[in-house]
């Protein structure tokens, strides 16, 4: 088997969520329904932003899709069949979550190492993933020597290294400053366009959802249900100028109204 190429074109996988239900129980407290009867269909190769207020259960939804959280009811299908192929899926967390004792290269190679790939293959694929997020010069550095934005890019490279066909991101750039965040948004969209993988991006930022995605799904306050599924009427080529465009402002307003409705306020 040849080394995975994180930048190579591939086909994304579809995701189907049917009546997903998740209740958190803790002793001495009332049950909290995080997700209630949620339906969602995502086509192969689509870039979808999931937008909702903080703590609305959108992270729970993403974790259920990743298989990190069990469903109390309903079903989730990734790809054609039931469960996803072994290396089809990657997950980017809210913070970088790197191993501080490993340098950038071996942090990025970690998923391949855990999957038991050969050392040479791991190194090649990791080097390519690092280059694809623009960190080739920092491959030998340790996480403590990197800025927050660089650490997040390492985290992104680590997710890309297995050539995922579905990339799940849970508010990945929320802790970064605006400029760094926009740079990463650009990079992520370019990687999506180049590879063709399916991307599911959870965020509470309307601007980020509108700028990144082809389609936005707006969720209600907890328990999460879908208020709006909206295909964004924006050009495929997106750059900084778009943020000042009237169409962009209009789409943002559509998402804003939906977010308010989901929050139980009059639109």
């Amino acid at each position: 088997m040849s080394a995975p190429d994180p930048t190579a074109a591939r086909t994304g996988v579809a995701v189907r969520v049917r009546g997903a239900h998740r209740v958190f129980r803790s002793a001495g407290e009332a049950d909290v329904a995080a997700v209630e009867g949620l339906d969602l269909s995502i086509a192969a190769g689509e870039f979808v932003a999931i937008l909702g207020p903080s703590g609305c259960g959108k992270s729970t939804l993403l974790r259920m899709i990743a298989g990190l959280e069990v469903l109390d009811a309903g079903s989730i299908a990734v790809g054609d069949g039931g469960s996803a192929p072994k290396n089809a899926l990657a997950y980017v967390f809210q913070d970088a979550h790197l191993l501080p004792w490993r340098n950038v290269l071996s942090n990025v190679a970690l998923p391949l190492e855990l999957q038991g790939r050969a050392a040479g293959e791991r190194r090649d694929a990791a080097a390519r993933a690092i280059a694809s997020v623009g960190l080739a010069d920092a491959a030998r550095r340790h996480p403590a020597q990197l800025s927050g934005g660089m650490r997040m890019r390492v985290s992104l490279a680590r997710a890309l290294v297995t050539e995922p066909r579905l990339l799940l991101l849970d508010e990945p750039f929320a802790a970064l400053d605006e400029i760094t965040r926009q740079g990463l948004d650009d990079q992520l969209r370019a990687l999506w366009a180049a590879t063709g993988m399916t991307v599911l991006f959870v965020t509470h930022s309307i601007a980020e959802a509108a700028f990144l995605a082809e389609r936005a799904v707006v969720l209600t306050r907890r328990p999460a249900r879908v208020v709006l599924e909206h295909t964004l009427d924006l050009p495929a080529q997106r750059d900084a100028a778009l943020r000042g465009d009237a169409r962009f402002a209009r789409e943002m307003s559509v998402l804003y109204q939906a977010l308010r409705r989901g929050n139980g306020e009059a639109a």
Partner: protein
Amino acid sequence: MKRRFVENFLPPAATFLLTTAAAEFGIRAAGISPLLLPTPSAVARAALQHSPTLLPALAMTAQAVAVGLALSIAVGLLVAIALSTSRWVERAFYPYAIFFQIVPIVAIAPLLVIWFGYGMRAVVAAAFIVSVFPVIANSLAGLLSVDPALRDLFRLYGASGFAQLWKLSLPWALPNVLTGLRIAAGLAVIGAIVGEFVGGGGLGVVVLEAMRQQRTDLVFAAVLHAAALGLALFAAVNATSHFALRRWHSQETEP
């Protein structure tokens, strides 16, 4: 580098010289009996004069401490790993691990002689008993504090239980393990000396003999040797942790 050396070593060296000089002249001026409190120079003379006794005794104590501490690390880590596997195991056994913490070593040292006989084994057992708990407690805290997101990441890529332990939990717990070891090193010296009081051999016996002969200067010389052993171990653990963790912290960037 040179400047750092001066900054690190000059102040404590100055403190040492000043207090030693003050003790020397103070004790002489006050005319305190050498039976109660010998002068630093008398202690130094005793140390030199009895070095044929003190150095082999130090070597013996050091050996018992090294073996006891090695046992503490091995057993302590294994126990911590076992306790970290499940909440139920932890609840069932951790209260009894505390036994090692609260047991008065002076009281059970005679018991160790009954079990292990006079000599090295009883001394090693004493060093082990007092030093194992800090290793267990700190390692367990480290193993239980692993970032849940990293656990998820390992699960996502189908990591085996062994890979999780070896590539995530143990390295993650390393700073805690080293903290435990730093505490354990000092305690192991105490345990060994107490063990030697009843089990025989090493600096503990030198102290007892010197007391019987009313050679307070030699008692001090032996105690200083024991202190030097503790200090050397502490420095060794510090050096290890500096070396092992140098990449973890941003202030220690490479040149």
